[in-house]
């Protein structure tokens, strides 16, 4: 079986297609700059004492341990945002075929199950 190439070999038609790709290039550059900015942001935020800040703001006592957890939460939110940019734009998941999404839904289900097992092991109901 001989497969025709994905793109028409007709130069005029390819010209039009290439123009579409060209428009994507600026989007990739912008996303790259945003990712670099958020890398610096996540570094800066890790030095902010969120526990101290919120205890000042709401006049409540927040222990250093809880404050540390706030920093972890903030860093993970920033990381999740960066990861979704990489996935949606660079990996083209914003517009992908249905079969790929199905594979990923399965993966998400199993990886969440994996973390759930970890949680179960940590929250050991027999010894705790």
């Amino acid at each position, binding site marked *: 079986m001989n497969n025709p190439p994905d793109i028409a070999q007709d130069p005029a038609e390819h010209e039009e297609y290439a123009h579409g*790709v060209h428009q*994507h290039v600026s989007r990739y550059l912008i996303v790259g700059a945003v990712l670099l900015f958020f890398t610096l942001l996540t570094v800066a935020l890790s030095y902010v004492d969120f526990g101290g800040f919120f205890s000042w703001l709401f006049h409540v006592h927040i222990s250093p341990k809880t404050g540390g957890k706030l920093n972890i939460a903030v860093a993970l939110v920033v990381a999740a945002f960066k990861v979704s940019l*990489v996935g949606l734009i*660079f*990996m083209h998941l914003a517009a992908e075929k249905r079969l790929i999404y199905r594979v990923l839904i399965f993966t998400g289900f199993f990886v969440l199950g994996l973390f759930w097992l970890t949680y179960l092991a940590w929250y050991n109901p027999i010894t705790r």
Partner: protein
Amino acid sequence: MEIPYTISTRPDTGLWNAKIGIWLFLASEVMLFGGLFSAYVFLRLDAGPGEWPHGLLNVPVGTMNTAILIMSSVTVVLAWAALKMRRYRAYWWYMLATILCGVIFLFVKLYYEWPQKFEHYGVFLKPEAREKYEQYLGNHRREEKGLEPRIEISGHLENREALTDPNAKEYEIGLDPVFTDPNNPANDRPHFLYVPPTDKVAKIEKEDVGRIDSFGPWHSAYFASYFTITGLHGAHVLGGVIVFLYMWLPVSKKVYQRNPEHLANRVEVAGLFWHFVDLVWIFVFPLFYLL
């Protein structure tokens, strides 16, 4: 017989072979790294007071390596776009930039970050001996403030022979800055800039020492997970660089000349792998360097 759908898409799925192949592979990779990250979470949640170290890695270097990986993710997607626009020359340059980024990343890891760790020692004190070294630990103040205690004194081991010499009575540690001024509130949180061990030497008697270890995987659950995850990640970077090198060499130009779309597809799937490697690092960087 020619294999169908290597370049054109299958009508029912809208995908060509390698595209579905790489996504299935990435799904297995998610499980692989997911297992390791869940181990990290487990170890960290179960660590006792003071057992999970903070601020031991070089943040500016880690930030630079993160930026390098992000830039390589941009260049690889630009390389793919250049092929789609049938600009081989531009593709060649973008691919070269990607390869160089990967090589720099690995170089920094293997020749700068990792070796430094093996030269750095941490002395874990016996709990009953901590009081004796209060001037270095500053645990009284930390207890008042509700901070976790310091359980080790780290720095440069000045008398390495003491590790093996049974007659040596003490370890001489060129202290890390934090132990020279333990009660300074500025030392409660990790610093951005790395400062090497100072000239101030602390003598720690062997009988007070629970154990002494360099900052290798044997040091703590923290470094064990650090070396496991960054090691596996580094192996992925190396794999990506080798594949990109093959696509950059003249041998791949023949593929381009035969059918440019074939090379574009190859670069797309290798790029998907590369973005995944970048994506893993986006989690590794804050989890190990910053938090």
